[in-house]
């Protein structure tokens, strides 16, 4: 993997990748009547793990109790299967493009260790935000965008506003 810089293929043009994604999204609607999701499976797995550790406590939580049927959190779920597919598709794409490699990506001004700390914090913020908004970039922006849901378009606008705004304060992480 040390020579991945030499062998890695260039990324696809934006339009090509976008059209591919759009067709996949359309297929999700055509087949399942629903769009794509990013964060939903993580919440289900989170509820499942919590239910394993503390079943009574989890069953008593208003938000997680909806995931529990007969004491168990089922992983036979559309988004869980879709997410397993995402890992697999991403892996195949990275491998066949010569891009697979164990790395920690970070900006020039921070160390790899610091990057992991920020990644954890960003993940936590995103995990909470996705539950507040009832979906993430996939479920709200992409899927809600394509079905022209009013609230999803508002979400998308706010996502971009939040990103550009936060970039002012967190330049050091990436530049």
């Amino acid at each position, binding site marked *: 993997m040390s020579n991945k810089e030499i062998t890695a293929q260039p*990324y696809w043009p934006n339009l090509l990748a976008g059209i591919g994604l759009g067709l996949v999204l359309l297929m999700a609607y055509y087949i399942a009547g629903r769009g794509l999701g990013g964060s939903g499976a993580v919440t289900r797995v989170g509820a499942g793990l919590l239910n394993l550790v503390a079943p009574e406590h989890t069953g008593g939580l208003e938000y997680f109790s909806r995931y529990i049927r007969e004491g168990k959190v089922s992983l036979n779920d559309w988004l869980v299967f879709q997410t397993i597919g995402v890992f697999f598709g991403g892996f195949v794409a990275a491998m066949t493009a010569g891009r697979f490699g164990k790395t920690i990506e970070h900006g020039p001004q921070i160390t790899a260790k610091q990057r*992991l700390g920020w*990644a954890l914090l960003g993940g936590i913020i995103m995990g909470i935000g996705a539950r507040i908004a009832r979906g993430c970039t996939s479920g709200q922006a*992409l899927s809600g965008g394509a079905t022209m849901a009013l609230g999803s378009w508002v979400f998308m606008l706010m996502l971009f506003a939040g990103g550009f*705004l936060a970039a002012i304060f967190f330049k050091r*992480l990436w530049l």
Partner: protein
Amino acid sequence: MNEIVAPLAKTGYLGPEINLVFAMLIGVGFGFFLERGGFGSSRKLTAQWFGKDWSVFRVMFSAIVVALFGIVFLDLLGLMPFERLYLNHTYLVPQILGGLMMGAGFVIGGYCPGTSFVGFASGKLDALVYIIGLLLGSVFFGEAYDLFAPIMEMGDMGNITLPEFFGLPALVVGLMVLALAAGGFWAAAKVENLVKDK
């Protein structure tokens, strides 16, 4: 007339097990195109937020336009009635707050949830840590739901679409989205050049 009416899993063409198999295949396509677009890399993704690389915007909007017109035309042809598709409910307040939070989380964490799976699948350890963060955040939300519950239904406007809101045909709104995307692509190229020269 005996056309195949979609969505297939809701009109009896596909059983629940096969639907899960297709879920996985659809996920494979999703992950594959995200990776090929460069979205397994947090540095590529976050360059968006500094105006240097507008790939996130361009890929997202071209995907939305393709799916949107597919959905509109299939509905007009009667092959996939729009009412049968899952539609995100509009709750303005949580969608505004969640959107802002996630924009910030994107910059700080380097990924959005879907792209973090692709990042991890291509070997990025920062993506794995980010996913652990996602898990912790989701569990925290469930644990502290009482804290969030008061705002979760604020700004409830029901299952409303842009065409309904503006009182325009879906095709017209679709063309407006297309124009917005085209204008955005043009402006993005300008900004990229500007930032490059700096």
